């Protein structure tokens, strides 16, 4: 069997990973249609992609990439250093629509040395640069086909774009001209099923072979018990947090924030909202990362203490606030539990269910909220705490300085230490309520091999997938 049907929760709005934030785009195209100079592997490591190898200058500012020879785009044009320069310049240009422009902020100059060699000069050393280049937002595109990229993506990957039935599915076909190893699959169909019930039904009916991130954790025991299926529980980069508006009274008082942290029973939330899937976290960092520090004890569930702290802060009778909840069930269900737990200590959290667009408008941009629950799925995104205008509005010069130091540090051990310090800092400041690391709940037919268990980035790497037999 050489075809596969993979279900995704969300449909990509279009297929250009370099001009939108939607993860669904990456899920479909990353490494399958588009490739970057470097790429992520399933375990989170960064390995060479279109760049065969690279050299880094002494001062860490100049990267010289050696490209693979004989790589062609799906339209037959060759991929060379010019395309790399075009892609990176396009991403960092003034009128770029790239959603992660910050990834390229440090690039000073890109120079084509010869058709297979590119030299990238940074304004200052960046230990994360190769990691940044592995993002889906940094894939290599060609000027010849850039016009129609949104609906007819042309990349260098092992699969070519087949057909898109909007609202239903996207089909990819094997690229016979692929430069790398020939994948086992011939065609792959991505189906979009957002409704959890429908997801369950479709899976049970064996309409689909793989559900990348199954939306209803409550159904997993049924799949586990069924020999037709395998369940892959891994972790994502999603720190699920009770985001708190640090500028809005009374949350500008650290005592109140701490009381909030102690009022919340993480385990109950994981059990109730996620049916047990998810790892408790005490800070904004992924537990599977080597640099992770377990700080859950810092904000242990202790309603008495929470109530007392509230009283100390002058809110003996509690207060009223809003709890904005975006659509995913971790937020909606988790929110109900959080609201109930906060009620125990006297805080009335009025639930406001919002669509993503509204969430972005009111919460993220308007900063008009008290509390919200959201999973931050970008990898290694502790840096957001250094942005005082970021929606939860944490403004700490200590932390900002720490991040500056981190960015210019390349020594791995030192970086680990600094990261630990950063984790502690935000945990001690009780910036947000840290709930749990979102689990990646993959469900697949028993015979499917090569699926990523974890999700270092949103991707379904078709090149690794095969059927056992």
């Amino acid at each position, binding site marked *: 069997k050489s075809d596969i049907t993979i279900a995704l929760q969300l449909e990509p709005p279009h297929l250009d990973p370099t001009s939108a934030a939607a993860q669904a785009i990456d899920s479909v195209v990353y490494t399958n249609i588009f490739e970057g100079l470097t790429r992520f592997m399933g375990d989170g490591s960064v390995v060479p992609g279109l760049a065969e190898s690279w050299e880094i200058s002494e001062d860490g500012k100049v990267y010289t990439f050696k490209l693979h020879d004989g790589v062609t785009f799906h339209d037959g044009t060759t991929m060379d250093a010019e395309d790399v320069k075009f892609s990176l310049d396009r991403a960092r240009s003034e009128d770029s629509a790239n959603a992660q*422009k910050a990834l390229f902020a440090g690039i000073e100059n890109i120079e084509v040395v010869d058709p297979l060699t590119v030299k990238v000069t940074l304004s200052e050393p960046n230990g994360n640069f190769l990691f940044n280049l592995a993002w889906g937002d940094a894939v290599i595109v060609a000027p010849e086909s850039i016009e129609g990229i949104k609906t007819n993506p042309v990349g260098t990957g092992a699969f070519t774009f087949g057909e898109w039935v909007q609202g239903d599915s996207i089909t990819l076909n094997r690229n016979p001209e692929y430069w790398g190893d020939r994948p086992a699959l011939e065609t792959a169909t991505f189906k979009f*099923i957002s*409704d959890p019930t*429908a997801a369950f039904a479709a899976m*049970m009916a064996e*309409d689909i072979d793989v559900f990348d991130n199954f939306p209803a954790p409550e159904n997993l025991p049924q799949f586990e018990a069924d020999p037709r299926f395998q369940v892959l529980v891994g972790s994502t980069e999603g720190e699920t947090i009770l985001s708190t508006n640090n500028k809005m009274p009374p949350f500008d008082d650290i005592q109140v924030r701490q009381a909030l942290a102690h009022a919340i029973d993480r385990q109950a939330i994981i059990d109730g909202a996620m049916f047990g899937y998810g790892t408790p976290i005490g800070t904004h960092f992924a537990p599977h990362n080597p640099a992770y520090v377990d700080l859950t004890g810092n904000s242990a569930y202790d309603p008495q203490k929470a109530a007392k702290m509230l009283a100390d802060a002058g809110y003996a009778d509690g207060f009223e606030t809003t709890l904005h909840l975006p659509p995913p069930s971790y937020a909606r269900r988790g929110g109900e539990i959080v609201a109930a737990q906060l009620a125990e200590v006297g805080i009335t959290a009025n639930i406001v269910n919002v669509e*993503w667009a509204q969430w*972005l*408008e009111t919460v993220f941009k308007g900063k008009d909220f008290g509390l919200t629950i959201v999973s931050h799925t970008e990898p290694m995104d502790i840096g957001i705490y250094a942005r005082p205008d970021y929606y939860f509005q944490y403004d700490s010069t200590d932390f900002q300085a720490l991040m500056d130091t981190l960015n210019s540090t390349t020594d791995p051990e030192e970086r680990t230490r600094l990261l630990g310090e950063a984790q502690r800092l935000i945990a001690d400041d009780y910036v947000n309520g840290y709930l749990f690391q979102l689990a990646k709940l993959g469900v697949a037919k028993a015979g499917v091999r090569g699926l990523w268990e974890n999700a270092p980035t949103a991707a379904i790497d078709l090149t690794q997938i095969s059927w056992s037999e």
Partner: protein
Amino acid sequence: MRFLPIFWFHRCWTRRAHTPNVASMLRYALKRLISLVISLAVASVVIFAVIEVAPGDPASFMLGVNAQEDTLAALRAELGLDVSKVQRYFNWVGGMMVGDFGTSYTYRTPVSQMIADRLWVSLPLALYALTLSTAIAFPVGIYAAARRGKPGDLTVMGATQLGIAVPNFWFAMMLVLVFAINLRWFNAGGFAGWAMGFWTGMHSLTLPAIALALPQAAILARVMRSSLLDILGEDFMRTARAKGLSRRQALWRHGVRNALIPVLTIIGLQFSFLLAGSIIIEQVFYLPGLGRLVFQAISARDLIVVESVVMLLVFAVITVNFLVDLAYAAVDPRLRSRT
């Protein structure tokens, strides 16, 4: 079923073309047409206004949380969001007149294309459901009317009461549970596409059509029954019997067509309801239809899609009602000569 009124209209039109009533029919049609156009104009303003007050910026939704202001501005210009609201209204309406519904903010494809694609699911589904509900309701309604007050009537009417009371999404859930998950006779949802063949397509629309049709059939059957009972009490039914028609013949020749007049209204309303109101059912069965398109577009702030689809639905409803009115006039000759 949708073609029935048109067919009638046509038949009566040709048959009566020589009589002066054509003028009154035309006048009637023209009058209705004018009010149709006014309704559409008002509707477009209302829709535009309602959607424009909605909070949420499509550009920032598309670019996500890390987007920068200059990027957003670039995108807004590209989407045509940077002109005045009045200007945008006229751009929108003007475009629609020539079949250009604009470009989807999120999908970046022509909205007309998207709507056309979705119509290929929604329209067949609505027709399928309407056919089912009519096919169920007519015999049931006629049976009950013919057996008024007898156990058969009471049973059937009890069942229709129940049918009306069942929320269709709940019914859909139960259908999925029984027929898709337990019995595996049908797929739990999704639409294979007409490319896979007509029957495959119909197969995937069957459960949703049933979920939509049964509650509608219950309503229609009741209307059919009471309408027929009204007609059965009319003097001309007695006249027909006095001519020597049997109960059955009288019912079919003189009763059904007269009884159809109120039934027709309901069918018209139901068609519009089925076209637009299947949102929830499309959610349950994850069908890529118009309803789901609206729902998705609302959550994605894809205003242009929402506006256009809602406008299209309103257009459909108004037009169907217009056709139903004409069909009325065709079925009931009295109507044409009335003011």
